[in-house]
């Protein structure tokens, strides 16, 4: 008999064994897929993804109900010699969102990679599913591992699975993009590993809980640990593609097959960000009070502005969405300077975690919708989208709904993130972060209008579709977009999950939007967005047919600004420039951390 009492008793009886299950599912899947071959791979992964979602929900429910982290020691060995797995609130959130997006992509890609009956298997039919399982294994390990070296291995597993996903179709451009991604990510992981060595050399252990106890007990950070923190952080920033280290992201995310792009953009970059969270919030919470945290915030603000401006100038839909990812990554890093404000780190951590979830849902929906459009009309040039709104209403609707979440309108996840960030900024008297948030929202509204305006405009002749979209694919995309838009309607207790397992400030996250929802707020948020959209509709170069297809910088009389932004981005994404910015960032951060203590 399934009553609430029996369910809660069952959840209370769950110990960390469930965590091992989450690590084993993808690995068992890899072996199964290898044995069964590409013809059945899709269905096996679909089944495993369903099981994985159930396990992730069980972990989240157990953490939420118990009010404390789950923990499991492998082989019964305690740290520092043994390896410990653990799931606190944010781990549970990462496990959940990974399982949800993975399931959506597994459903979406069922037919894309399956060989025709009677035809020979292609390389992609097996490789895609194995790499997908590899990404899943990497992300679950990132969520659960509790020592710095296991986290290194997990990140490498994640990168090695993600890189070939980029080059799945084997074209020269995507191979070059994948190689570029791999080499820059390797630079990042070596720097991270160097930081790990320094920490081990100083404290003789790598277990996060033990290290945190020793680090907070000391009066000041030893110089080696300041340097190690800078090395690990910058290495992870290279893998997260925070401006100015974003050289690899746009070609890699825009060139991959749509199902792979969705995984890369929605989940893979979040893995390394999650590790930055672990380092700054769990391992060395003292860092958040230092001025060095402002450096991360400034880079985040630069990412929001540069990414959104660049998105506005793209001619191709997938590149536009990739640059939008560059911008959305920026929001993740605004939380660091705001964590020291009056609300304590709770709101900042809540904003970061919610942004991970909200962006994963929205960006998954956008890339998959762009994939349907690309498959149906054979290209993704924004200026050639006329008539798509009539021919493919559901994907265009999903694009629009996911875009609303990126703008940050009620009741979307993006709105919650902005409410938390604005609240912390105002409490800390740092109003300028709010300006960045507003500017980002308006620019997002502008490029969304640009895309939807083209898609909804009529074409003279009815569009002939190369390939009719499949209904289940359209539904998956729409569900993801709706989930992102409706995130704010979750019951308030769900947000308390984020704070479980850590002693943070006094403010529960749910109180942040006690008065945030309402018609007044909706209207206040909607008006500037509508104004930006109207400006684009009136002044955008809708009739012009410039081959570059960039949005009408000339029409606004600010052509120079558009060109300057594009030049800046091209320079920053030049390999030696990116490498030198990485070194400069490393030195600045190390000095900032060493001087601050």
């Amino acid at each position, binding site marked *: 008999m399934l009553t609430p009492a029996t369910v809660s008793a069952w959840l209370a009886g769950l110990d960390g064994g469930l965590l091992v299950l989450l690590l084993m599912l993808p690995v068992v899947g890899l072996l199964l897929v290898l044995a069964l071959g590409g013809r059945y791979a899709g269905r096996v992964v679909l089944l495993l993804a369903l099981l994985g979602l159930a396990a992730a929900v069980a972990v989240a429910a157990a953490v939420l109900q118990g009010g404390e982290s789950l923990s499991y020691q492998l082989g019964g060995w305690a740290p520092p010699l043994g390896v410990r797995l653990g799931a606190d609130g944010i781990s549970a959130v990462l496990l959940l969102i990974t399982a949800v997006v993975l399931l959506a992509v597994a459903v979406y890609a069922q037919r894309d990679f399956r060989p025709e009956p009677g035809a020979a298997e292609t390389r992609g039919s097996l490789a895609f599913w194995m790499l997908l399982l590899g990404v899943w294994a990497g992300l679950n390990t990132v969520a659960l591992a509790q020592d710095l070296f296991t986290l*290194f291995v997990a990140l490498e597993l994640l990168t090695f699975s993600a*890189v070939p996903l980029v080059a799945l179709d084997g074209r*020269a451009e995507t191979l070059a993009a994948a*190689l570029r991604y*791999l080499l820059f990510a390797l630079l990042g*992981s070596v720097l991270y590993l160097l930081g790990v060595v320094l920490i*081990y050399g100083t404290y*003789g252990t790598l277990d996060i809980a033990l290290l945190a106890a020793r680090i907070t007990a000391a009066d000041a950070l030893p110089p080696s640990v300041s340097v190690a923190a800078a090395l690990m952080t910058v290495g992870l920033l290279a893998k997260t593609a925070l401006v100015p280290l974003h050289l690899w992201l746009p070609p890699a995310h825009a060139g991959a097959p749509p199902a792979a792009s969705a995984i890369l953009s929605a989940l893979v970059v979040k893995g390394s960000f999650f590790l930055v969270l672990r380092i700054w919030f769990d391992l060395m919470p003292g860092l958040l009070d230092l001025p060095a945290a402002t450096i991360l915030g400034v880079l985040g603000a630069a990412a929001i502005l540069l990414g959104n401006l660049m998105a506005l100038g793209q001619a191709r839909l997938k590149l536009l969405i990739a640059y939008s990812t560059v911008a959305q990554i920026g929001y993740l890093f605004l939380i660091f300077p705001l964590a020291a404000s009056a609300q304590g780190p709770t709101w900042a951590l809540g904003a970061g975690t919610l942004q991970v979830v909200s962006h994963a849902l929205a960006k998954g929906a956008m890339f998959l919708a762009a994939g349907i459009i690309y498959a149906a009309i054979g290209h993704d040039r924004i200026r050639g989208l006329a008539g798509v709104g009539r021919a493919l209403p559901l994907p265009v609707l999903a694009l629009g709904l996911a875009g609303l979440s990126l703008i940050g309108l009620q009741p979307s996840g993006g709105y919650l993130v902005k409410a938390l960030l604005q609240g912390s900024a105002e409490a800390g008297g740092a109003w300028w972060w709010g300006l960045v948030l507003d500017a980002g929202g308006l620019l997002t509204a502008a490029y969304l209008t640009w895309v939807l305006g083209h898609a909804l405009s009529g074409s003279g002749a009815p569009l002939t579709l190369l390939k009719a979209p499949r209904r289940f694919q359209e539904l998956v995309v729409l569900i993801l977009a709706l989930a992102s838009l409706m995130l704010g309607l979750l019951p308030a207790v769900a947000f308390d999950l984020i704070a479980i397992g850590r002693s943070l400030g006094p403010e529960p996250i749910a109180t942040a939007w006690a008065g945030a929802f309402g018609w007044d707020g909706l209207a206040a948020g909607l008006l500037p967005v509508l104004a930006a959209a109207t400006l684009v509709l009136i002044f955008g170069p809708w009739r012009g047919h410039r081959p570059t297809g960039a949005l009408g910088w000339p029409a606004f009389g600010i052509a120079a600004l558009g060109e300057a932004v594009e030049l800046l981005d091209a320079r920053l994404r030049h390999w*030696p420039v990116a490498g030198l910015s990485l070194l400069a960032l490393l030195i600045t951060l190390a000095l900032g951390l060493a001087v601050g203590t």
Partner: protein
Amino acid sequence: MSGTTLFGLCAAALVGIGLYGLICHPGPLRKILAFNLLGGGVFLLFGVIAKRGGGVLTAAGTGSDGDPVPQALVITGLVVAFAATAIAVALLRRLAAVSGRDTVEEAGEGDPRC
């Protein structure tokens, strides 16, 4: 100068050379080699720390003066670096076979030299 200091300095030099090569050499093959040098420096540092001793086992009074944990970590790190090199070389070979290109700069970008 003690052995650990000497090897520590060697590790720092390797890391420096590797970083220089990875950032400044335009060719991907050189970048891959530079990555291996850089990794070699980091692994050497693990060795130095193992030799320096201390760590869990010494604290537990096992009587050994070295620390075996970094060696276990290095072996894992070597496997990871080997896998990374294999993937990078495979991608590079494929890229050269498909297009004859051997650069990771995007088409149309300016002078690839540092």
